[in-house]
């Protein structure tokens, strides 16, 4: 199957106005594609419009709440009206909700799951029939996480959604084998993004009603920023996604340092099968 990364083709990137999404959008624009940058945050969209202005008419920034199916329907209409066909769908939008599952508020689960898993499911629902229908090479790539393959002790709500995203992309790839559409999953480790700064932008619909401790929130964000600031740059990750799309690679990782953690999970299962 030939790949869809060609000048004149069109890509759609959710969470595309910052972080990994913006890195992917820039890589696609560099490759000559038209790119729809979809994001829920107006401030990020404003900055993305400015950053992507040199691409002119090839970059279009739109507002999209990935948890809203009506928003997705409108997005498809925009793509079909402007460029007729979508070739690359990057389901990247995500929010980092960490902390205890047991002590969590219901709203924590609802928000994380609506964006991190529901947003991907909605995107596939909105665009897969379109992508299959036009018959040209097309590709869906979703951003999961290393947390979609291994768990930590404070990220259960996040990991549960991200495990589901890995399963969806593996299944889609299997189901779509032999068709014009393929699928991959991106499992980033540390990347210099704002994913754990989202708490302050939590939509009212997912407000837990709990008054946040500002000092604690500041400390948590500072810690996350400090760690992630040492990670890969989003531009590097965008380039990795570009390479993976060209190669039709099933999995995309951003750091080989994660190997021992995945081996630990594999070995735990092998030991449970009596094979270690």
């Amino acid at each position: 199957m030939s790949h869809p990364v060609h000048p004149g083709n069109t890509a759609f990137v959710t969470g595309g106005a910052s972080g990994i999404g913006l890195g992917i959008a820039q890589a696609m624009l560099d490759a000559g594609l038209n790119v729809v940058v979809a994001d829920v945050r107006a401030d990020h969209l404003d900055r993305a419009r400015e950053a992507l202005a040199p691409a002119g008419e090839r970059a279009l920034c739109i507002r999209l709440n990935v948890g809203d199916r009506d928003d997705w329907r409108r997005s498809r209409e925009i793509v079909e009206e402007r460029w007729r066909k979508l070739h690359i769908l990057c389901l990247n939008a995500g929010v980092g909700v960490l902390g205890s599952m047991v002590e969590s508020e219901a709203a924590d689960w609802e928000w994380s799951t609506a964006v991190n898993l529901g947003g991907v499911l909605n995107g596939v629902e909105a665009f897969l029939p379109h992508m299959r229908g036009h018959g040209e090479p097309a590709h869906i790539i979703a951003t999961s996480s290393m947390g979609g393959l291994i768990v930590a002790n404070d990220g259960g709500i996040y990991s549960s959604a991200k495990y589901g995203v890995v399963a969806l992309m593996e299944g889609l790839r299997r189901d779509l084998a032999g068709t014009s559409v393929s699928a991959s999953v991106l499992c980033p480790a540390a990347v210099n993004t704002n994913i754990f700064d989202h708490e302050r932008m939590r939509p009212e619909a997912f407000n837990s009603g709990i008054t946040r401790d500002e000092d604690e929130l500041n400390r948590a964000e500072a810690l996350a920023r400090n760690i992630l600031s040492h990670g890969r740059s989003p531009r590097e990750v965008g380039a990795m996604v570009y390479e993976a799309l060209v190669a039709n690679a099933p999995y995309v990782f951003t750091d080989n340092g994660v190997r021992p953690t995945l081996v630990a999970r594999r070995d735990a299962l092998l030991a449970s099968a009596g094979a270690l």
Partner: protein
Amino acid sequence: MSRLLIMELGSDIPSVGMKVDHFEFPRDATITQLRQQVQALPGKPDGYLLAVGGRGHDSIEEVDWQHEVIRPLRHAFGFVTGAVRRLREQGEGGLIIFLLPSAALIPSRVSTVRSVLLRALLGMAEALRAELGSASAINTSIVFHASCEGEAELGRRVSQVFKLAQMYSLSTDIDEQQLREYFSPLLAAIDATSAGPPLPDIGPMAVVYDLNSIGAAHT
């Protein structure tokens, strides 16, 4: 004999050959309602069992994701976190068992739609065990079941996790080769990736998978 409080997700749930009390709940129950319901139940179950079947919607293009994935996930989350809250309130230890089809590990055996739910539940189960930690009196075990497995064998393995609280109890249709086949392309993709920049020390990773803490290896 142990008595279990069971939440069933799906129509093809295997029998575990034990006394069970069924946890009945409204389809549109919220997480808060489910937690409250579990916490308010009379009696003292020996364990809490989330039992999931393998049958699911076939078509990826004509699926109600809310019905097939999001709602059952919400039910599961409310049930298991409610159970842990209840055990903590009572100051007692206990066991939460996730009874999942082997397809949660070997995805090609079920539809993609079902696979999404099963894997998300597997992540939830592993993460709950990680959160509770190996020193906790409350444990989480994941028991995989095979469609061909008899009640006696499954009951034996469920009884065993009550004694050993191991992380995984694998059904006989999951073997070493299948596990290696699943992980091989993942590890090959990692091996083809360069090293990222060095990060600050963030402490030990993947502790929950430590071979010394996953419990008895051979079932």
